[in-house]
Every structure is written in structure tokens, then in C-alpha cells.
């Protein structure tokens, strides 16, 4: 029953500041295993755990791994990785794999935002990143959900119920938290407040860079709050592409990098 289907696999590990993502792909670039877990304080232990879980899902063993590439904020904390690649390189590769056209990637992560532009051959033509400020990132939404005392996973559904959005006066997370509490005190409706919070995220991204070509949105925040994509579509008046696993695009990119480095000859 528990028979391993021994086959060569490639592993990508994306250790983000808030979440660790692992993707396992087979020789045909199919995603066969994956796992996501909060990075916590011990990055190495979390990476180990996620790898175990992903291998189990892929039904393979450690010895089947041809090569492992790590990426992300904590990429240096993965002792079993053969290589590290920057997160920009991995996100670009992961997205281009699904959408091999000129694209603008918006990645909304736990603690940073990236806008990466790729040309028709998947080469990077421009890149912007925000690392100094929590505005518009997952940390912003987390802080708001904590202040509002609403589980993070309920935010998306509530925002959708809004009829009249209440815009926030400041982009700063700390000031927004105060403002949000004030709105509650003044009897404003929760969905309207939350939609305003979402709008702040969308607005912050719009300020970062122009959104040309086809737009792709990725990252954990997008995975859990798909309404953000709808709001962004409304803002730019175009359809936005989202990969099947938006949170895994960095990890999949890392796995693809691993494969490129050590292609196996299938005879």
C-alpha cells in the first residue's frame, strides 16, 4: 500500500520571512508534492519538516532527490540545499513556467512586495521591491485582522460583502490600525472597513510601478485573499492571471532552477 514510486525529483524551498514553501517536481516538471508552513524562528527545522511532508505527498524518498535549490529571505538556513538562487530569479522562473509570455508579476508576500517584469523569453526587464515598510504586504493584513479581532481567513469573505468602502487616510500599518479601531468605535460596518484595508494594499502596489503587459499575481496574500485580484482587475481594467498555486511560485521556480542545473538524461 505504501509502496514508494521511486522516480527522480527536484526540490525547491522558498523560506520566506513568514512562510516556508516547498515544491517537489518530477522530471516532466509536474508538481508532485508541496507543503507550506509558518517559518517560525527555527528556519532549518521548518524547512526539514516541509521537505518531509512534500516528499511524503510525492510518494518518494530522500534518495530520489536529484538536486535542491533554496530561495527566499532564509535561503541560507537550509543546510541540505545544493544551491541558493535569489527570490527574484525563482519567482520569475516559477511564473514564466505557467505563463510563457511577456508578463508583469506582482508578488505580495508576508513582508515584502515585488513587481517583476519579464520579456517574451522570460528575461527580467525590470524589478521593484519594497522591503522597508509593511504597507501593502501580508504583515499589513495580519496586523489589521489582529486589531479587528477577525481571523485572517475571514477577511476575504467580509470584504466581498462591502457596499460602501471606507478608505484609510494613511498607508502606514501602525496608523491604519488606529484608524480602523476608530472607525469601529464610530459604528462603521466591518465589511466596509475591511474593503478599505484591501484597497490600501491595492493602492500601495499601484504606486510601486506601472503595470504593463499581462499581469500575474502571486504570493500567499493572493492565495488566501483572491478578492484582492478582483479589486486589482477593477483598478486596471484588465484580466489578471493567477497560477494554480500562487503561494508556491517561488518554490516551483527554485525547483525548476534545480532541474536546469542538473538535467537528467532520460534514455
Amino acid at each position, binding site marked *: 500500500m505504501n509502496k514508494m514510486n521511486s522516480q527522480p525529483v527536484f526540490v525547491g524551498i522558498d523560506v520566506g*520571512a*513568514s512562510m516556508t514553501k516547498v515544491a517537489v517536481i518530477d522530471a516532466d516538471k509536474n508538481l508532485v508534492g508541496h507543503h507550506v508552513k509558518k517559518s517560525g*524562528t*527555527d528556519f532549518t527545522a521548518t524547512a526539514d519538516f516541509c521537505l518531509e511532508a512534500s516528499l511524503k505527498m510525492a510518494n518518494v524518498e530522500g534518495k530520489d532527490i536529484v538536486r535542491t535549490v533554496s530561495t527566499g529571505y532564509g535561503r541560507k538556513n537550509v543546510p541540505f540545499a545544493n544551491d541558493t538562487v535569489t527570490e527574484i530569479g525563482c519567482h520569475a522562473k516559477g511564473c514564466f513556467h505557467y505563463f510563457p509570455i511577456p508578463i508583469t508579476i506582482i508578488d505580495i508576500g508576508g*513582508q515584502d512586495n515585488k513587481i517583476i517584469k519579464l520579456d517574451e523569453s522570460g528575461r527580467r526587464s525590470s524589478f521593484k521591491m519594497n*522591503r*522597508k*515598510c*509593511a504597507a501593502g504586504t501580508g*504583515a*499589513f493584513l495580519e*496586523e489589521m485582522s489582529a486589531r479587528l479581532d477577525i481571523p485572517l481567513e475571514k477577511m476575504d469573505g467580509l470584504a466581498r460583502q462591502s457596499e460602501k468602502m471606507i478608505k484609510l487616510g*494613511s*498607508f*502606514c*500599518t*501602525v*496608523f491604519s490600525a*488606529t484608524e480602523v*479601531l476608530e472607525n469601529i*468605535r464610530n459604528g462603521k460596518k466591518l465589511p466596509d472597513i475591511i474593503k478599505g484595508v484591501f484597497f490600501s494594499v491595492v493602492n500601495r502596489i499601484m504606486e510601486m510601478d506601472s503595470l504593463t503587459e499581462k499581469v500575474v499575481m502571486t504570493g500567499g496574500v493572493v492565495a488566501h485573499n483572491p478578492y484582492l485580484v478582483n479589486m486589482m482587475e477593477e483598478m486596471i481594467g484588465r484580466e489578471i492571471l493567477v497560477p494554480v498555486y500562487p503561494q508556491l511560485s517561488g518554490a516551483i521556480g527554485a525547483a525548476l532552477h534545480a532541474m536546469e542545473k542538473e538535467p537528467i538524461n532520460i534514455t
Partner: protein
Amino acid sequence: MNNVLFTLGIDVGGSYIKALLMKHSNEPTVIDKRTEKIRKRNPVTVAEEMLSLLLEKNKLKQDDIAYLASTGEGEMVARKTGHFYSMTTHARGGIFLNPDVKTVVDMGALFVRAIKVNNLGKVLDYKMTGQCASGSGQFIENITRYLGLAVEEVGEISLQSTTPETPSGICAVLAETDVINMVSRGISTPNIVKGIHLSIANKVVRLLSSLKAESPIALTGGMAMNKGMVQAVDELSKESKLNYKFISHPDAIYAGAVGAALWGAFRYKILKMKDEKIIAT
């Protein structure tokens, strides 16, 4: 008796409310004062309670107060006589507490403002932070929450630091991750706390240098009560060769309320003079 009058200044800030009772005879003197953390309460009710307590304790009635001046977010205080803008009250209060200064820096819960003043407390120029909490007292409050400390003790803790560890970013929210990582790396609490103080102080010093501030500089507002903050600002100013000379009064947190009480007395006298003129004609 006719020459003696009382005024009240109330400064409603982002985190604390400061109320202060002043007596004006020959020289204005501070009679009594109170601070209260707003927490999650309604600032209007907190302010009302504080004013009632101050009056009661000093055996005064509302009618004995010539002018009740509000400042900060104090426009909502119901029984105020009038409201004064924070910039003018902090300048006036800063000069009253520290007579010879050329610049007053109000380091509050939500933002920092640096004000150039003349010897009468007139505002000559100013600059303030506002878009971001990275230079605000709220940052310190967040950090104390993560580390399980009291706001009152962080200053002393910061003074114990030997090798401060500065966070990589400057964002008050992202610093949380940095702090968690520092704790797990075994960095001591004083070194973490000092690093945060330096990060905020950096904002303050940059604001001062962009204003082309002149020494001596009075540090006021809630963060000026924090010895670690004063030390951090001083260190950075020396490090960047600006060599500002800082002064911090024990009542620094009351600067806005003092200024309001002084401006209140001033306006009362002007109004009275006008009334007398009207009666005379």
C-alpha cells in the same frame, strides 16, 4: 486677588492625555498636573474625568478657571474655552520649560515635529514626520508589547546596552520579525531595545538636520521622558558630527499642555481688555 487667575491646559495626544493647572500672578506657575493613558477608552470621557479630578483636588470650580485651553486632538473636549494648534502650544511650552532653546522637538506617539522658535516661543520654521510610524512613540509601544516590557522601563533597559543590535528595516511593523529573530539568536533585551531606540533616533536626527536646527534643542513629548531615547538621540547626533546640545525637562511630556495653559491666559487677557474697551466706550 484680582490679579491671580487660573488656566487649564489639556493636550489630547495619540496615546496619552496630559492636563495641567496653572496659576498666573506675577509669574505663571504650574500648580498641578495629570497624565492618563487613553488605552481603548473614549478620549472625551477620559479628558472630562481628568479635568474634574484636577479641579476637585485643588478645590476649584469650573467658574474659577479663566480659560480652559485644549490642544492636540483636544477639540472634542466639551468644556473647553478654546482650542490652540499643537505647533504653537508645543513651541510656547517648550520655551517655558527650557527658556534658552532655539529648537523644540515634540516626540509623540504618532509623529515627531521639530520646531524652530524664538525666545518668545514664536514658531519660525518646522518640519514633521507623518506618513510613517517608524519615528514614533507607537514603535516603542509595539516593541514593549513583543518583549513583554512596560513602556516606563524600556528607557532604563536601553541604557544598559553594550552592543546595540539595529533592526534591518525601519518599519515599526516589520521590526517585529527582526525582534523575534534577535530573541531566538540570543541577543540580550537591552541590546534589542537600544537598537530600536537608535532606529527611531535616526529619524529624529535626520528631521533636525533637514530643518537645519540650532542648539540648544529641547526634547519634549512622551518619548522625551524616556532616558534611553534621549541618550540615543544624543549619541547619533555626535556620531553624525551634528553635535546638537539636547535638554530634556522632567515635565517634558506636558509641553503641549503648558503651552495651551499659557496661550489660554494670554487670550483671556486680550478678550478682557477688549471687553473693558467696549464698556468704556
